């Protein structure tokens, strides 16, 4: 049953040190505000899963929240590397980061298997690829009917999944649209789920086939306008491409990254204040 609550309280009660955490959103609706709150509350030793780690996990990894990352594409889209991810992998800073690599198809399939309460997912991939040689999480099985050799990956069943969506109603039913990624699968695969939303409304006014997560599949719903920034929320705001480009310089060395995290996350008490500090910084640059 969804509780309408603050993001601070939701993270306090639902995200624990050492948890297996999924924060999903494919370019669109990335739950940045929630990622910041996890950093602010200094969660440790998380096992993070996400198709595209993006800036949200780069920040969490650099801030020392994670010990392992399960992913399929780890770059800054259209810009280059995720420097904090690379520093953790290549130099163990601020702590070593174990990697488990997949392709988008099989990792999204692994969420489907998790939501389906199955132990693994099958797909037709990886014959001839070196990925299975370097991963215990990709193995081959024989189809019991045809004998075909197929790839198997363990299902993804997070302790907690966090997503951002456009709307919830007052009961906590959640509506999202546009590029959906694997958010629905990730929520249904998890034991607990937090959803941040742009707005809370009386009526969702959705079509019958719309992507809706009924309130009883979600643990907490938090109203956080702009909570997907610098990614975008279809119908609300555009992707802040300039921030993605600026992140390359901010994250390139440890000092500038730490200064950014301190000023924007650790020294702010909410996403509202983060937005204010970010705006002030931009105003200074322009002025």
């Amino acid at each position, binding site marked *: 049953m969804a509780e309408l609550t603050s993001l601070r309280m939701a993270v306090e009660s639902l995200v624990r040190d050492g948890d297996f955490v999924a924060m999903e959103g*494919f*370019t*669109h609706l990335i739950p940045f505000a929630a990622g910041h709150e996890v950093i602010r509350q200094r969660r440790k030793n998380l096992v993070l899963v996400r*198709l595209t780690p993006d800036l949200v996990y780069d920040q969490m990894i650099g801030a020392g929240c994670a010990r392992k990352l399960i*992913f*399929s*594409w*780890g*770059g800054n*889209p*259209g810009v280059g*590397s*995720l420097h904090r991810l*690379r520093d953790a*992998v*290549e130099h163990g800073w601020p702590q070593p980061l174990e990697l488990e*690599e*997949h*392709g*988008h*198809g*099989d990792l*999204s*399939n692994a*969420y*489907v298997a998790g939501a389906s309460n199955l132990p693994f997912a099958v*797909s*037709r*991939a*990886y*014959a*001839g*690829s*070196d*990925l299975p040689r*370097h991963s215990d999480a990709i193995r081959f099985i024989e189809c019991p009917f045809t004998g*075909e*050799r197929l790839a198997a990956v363990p299902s993804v069943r997070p302790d907690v999944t966090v997503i951002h969506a456009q709307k919830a109603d007052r009961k906590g039913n959640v509506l999202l649209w*546009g*590029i*959906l*990624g*694997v958010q*629905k*699968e990730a929520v249904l695969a998890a034991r607990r789920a937090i959803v941040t939303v742009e707005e809370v409304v009386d009526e969702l006014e959705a079509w019958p086939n719309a992507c809706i997560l009924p309130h009883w599949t979600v643990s907490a719903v938090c109203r956080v306008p702009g909570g997907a920034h610098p990614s*975008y929320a*279809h119908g609300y705001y*555009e*992707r802040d*491409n*300039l921030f*993605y*480009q600026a992140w390359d310089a901010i994250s390139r060395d440890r000092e500038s990254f730490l200064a950014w995290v301190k000023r924007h996350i650790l020294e702010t008490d909410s996403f509202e204040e983060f937005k204010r500090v970010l705006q002030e910084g931009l105003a200074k640059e322009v002025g």
Partner: protein
Amino acid sequence: MSAQHPFTAAEMMTVAAARLLRNGDVCFVGIGLPSAAANLARLTHAPDVVLIYESGPIGAKPEVLPLSIGDGSLAETADTVVSTSEIFRYWLQGGRVTVGFLGAAQIDRFANINTTVIGDYARPQVRLPGAGGAPEIATCAGKVILVLRQSARAFVERVDFITSVGHLDGGDARSRLGLPGQGPVAVVTDLCLMTPDSLTKELTVTHLHPGVSAEKVRAATGWNIRLAESLEETAAPSFSELETLRQLQRRTALAHGRAPEA
């Protein structure tokens, strides 16, 4: 230069790659160079090409090139948007994709693709972004077209890591593994066009772009690359191809504050 209109090597690469898509193809599009080429094809000779992006849009017709694979412009202009798991399960693995259009950090003489690491996996010299959707696309798409800039660092005898399968060690290796798709059928670079030999599957240069010498291609390839006996020159970009590409780049630069790669 035999061209009537001045053009850059990057423009030639995108135009040459675009020409390989046919009207009616269902194309699974990688971000960056492949996306530019696929959209140029759609805006020129292949208006009915169906562009599928791994984030979920099917039949995307973006006005500007997406900076990332899940841009809103893809969803807004698509015929439908489905979940990422559905894209891979029903549409790609389901056998509905005729062409996969991919980039790569490193490829080898049998068009195997590396986007994982340069060097040893456990202690990489360079850690690359990883697989994305390419392993599944390289396995299941009807055929694969690769587009990337040519250099001896990117074109190596044997990739350090096979992220996505090309023709392995050549010959009938793919069919022996039972892979559903044909694999790479063309590699387009800023210097030339290569296709796998019909028997050995070794990449062979069939077309040199205008103004490019065989020596230049050899110098930019990390193995002793074969040239076709009937080596041809790629037709220079037409005025309309160039104009359409440049307008697309201009719109994109305006929208994003800078242009993605040509």
